[in-house]
């Protein structure tokens, strides 16, 4: 049974319902969508006792206020932020209890783009193509296919399991930074670039423009030179793919990216560092560090190991 749990008072610039998205429908041209910072969504869910990819609220740039309509377990994850429960500052990355009638508020912050307000039981909106994620351009999924407005009431499922008592260990929280360095694996079309182009990509600092949304982040910097034409035969595009069109300015693709693209992809951001670019604000200084596929895989497996160990109770948690 679904219970009315949260009423939006002020949604801020953009608040949407997101889960893991729609992997499995890309052959029909349907974007994956889902949380831009999947890691923050997943950990928030695990902290409050939900399934790892239950639907939650993705809140963009703060200025958000909502009222709890029942006693609710919740957690806020994402980059550093000022979160208040009835004007009392509260910690992020841990499960907390709100009483019916209390108000949660997220201020606009200097650091960080997106926060996840995860509610015990998970947000229940109708499944569309097997997901509760909002795809704004397609106007489907999530809450009536749109961003949330003042007065919207979100329902949740019943809270099934006990929340975790501990705060999520600091060293497992992504090292969000105002000027992140992103680790990448070269390819799949790095051979479409000249040696000089690859060097420009590796050694330069790029600036995140204000064209940064759920689809992707456009960067500005010294133009990356192609060896031949920037066009390729359109093929599949991964989360964190770095496309370079003819103007030499890279575009990092995120959750709402089109399923296919026709520009050469010089490199791909590794999974562990996607949260860093998903949380970077316009004006951020972005640099890249090339690592090998094998190192990237080690990082992935090690991170997954640490999360699972924490959940099993063997990783030391902060009280």
């Amino acid at each position, binding site marked *: 049974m679904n219970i009315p749990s949260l009423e939006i008072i002020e949604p801020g610039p953009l608040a949407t319902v997101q889960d893991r998205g729609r*992997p*499995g*429908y*890309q*052959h*029909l*041209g*349907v*974007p*994956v969508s889902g949380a831009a910072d999947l890691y923050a969504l997943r950990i928030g869910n695990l902290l409050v006792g939900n399934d790892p990819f239950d639907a939650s609220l993705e809140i963009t740039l703060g200025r958000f206020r909502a009222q709890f309509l029942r006693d609710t377990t919740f957690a806020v994850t994402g980059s550093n932020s000022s979160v208040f429960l009835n004007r009392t500052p509260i910690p992020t990355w841990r499960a907390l209890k709100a009483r019916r009638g209390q108000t949660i508020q997220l201020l606009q912050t200097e650091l960080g783009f997106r926060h996840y307000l995860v509610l015990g039981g998970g947000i229940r909106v109708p499944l*569309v*193509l097997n997901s509760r994620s909002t795809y704004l*351009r*397609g106007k*489907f*999924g999530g809450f009536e296919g749109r961003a949330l407005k003042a007065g919207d009431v979100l329902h949740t499922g019943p809270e099934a399991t006990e929340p975790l008592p501990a705060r999520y260990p600091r060293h497992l929280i992504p090292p969000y930074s105002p000027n992140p360095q992103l680790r990448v*694996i*070269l*390819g*799949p079309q*790095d*051979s479409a670039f000249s040696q000089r182009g690859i060097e420009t990509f590796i050694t330069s600092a790029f600036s995140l423009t204000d064209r940064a949304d759920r689809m992707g982040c456009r960067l500005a910097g010294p133009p990356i030179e192609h060896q031949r034409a920037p066009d390729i*035969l*359109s*093929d*599949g*595009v*991964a*989360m*964190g*793919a770095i496309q370079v069109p003819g103007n030499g300015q890279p575009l990092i693709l995120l959750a709402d990216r*089109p*399923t*296919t693209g026709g520009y050469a*992809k010089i490199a*791909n*951001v*590794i*999974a562990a560092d996607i949260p860093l670019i998903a949380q970077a604000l316009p004006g951020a200084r972005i640099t890249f560090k090339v690592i*090998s*596929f094998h190192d*990237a*895989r080690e990082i*992935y*497996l090690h991170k*997954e190991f640490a999360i699972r160990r924490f959940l099993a109770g063997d990783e030391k948690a902060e009280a």
Partner: protein
Amino acid sequence: MTEIVTKPFGTAPRFNHCGETALSVELGDTIDLETNRRVRRLFGKMRENPLHGVLSINPTYRSLFIQYDPWECSFEKLVLHLEDMLRHEGDDEPEDRTVEIPVCYGGEFGPDLPFVASHNGLTIKEVIGIHCAALYHVFMIGFTPGFPYLGSLDSRLFTPRRDTPRIRVPAGSVGIADQQTGIYSVESPGGWQIIGRSPLKFFDPHDDPPTLLRAGMKIRFRPINKDEYSLT
């Protein structure tokens, strides 16, 4: 870029890393029916024989794109599985249906039809005739939900994109851009020359399947008038 190249096939497939959570396997370097057929056969085989840890498979012109969870499935396991599927490829035709697409050409539905005609030194009637004569192959679906990448447009209709893209192109619009023709499956911004509109619904997220077209289908356009358009 780590590249594992294997030999036993006519064209050796190339396996490319797309980050550590995705790979693409390329079966050729050109847009041609035979390569595209092999891609779709491999797609079908992968769906029939799912491998644990594979999250999503997307067939494109000449490659198959696969997202996977490295905790559940390794790159190497996936390559072995793909090679196995390719070895037992068979020669069945995966999807061969022909779909007729009614299109109301010109007027408010196709504001760029006169430009396409004058650009190519043809009459409007000739443009419609040439556009409807061909059988188009759906090479892939991508870009936006349900959007078909079609081949091949008659060279007499090649027309560059509009200088200024439109902010809003209605769903069902049929257009030409350079050497391509296509159908806007959902409303979106776009710079293609719009020559007509189809009353069919090409994408509905609440339908199963959600798209009218799939890779491998063939389509033919059929001209209809405004009355027929509003009846469909």
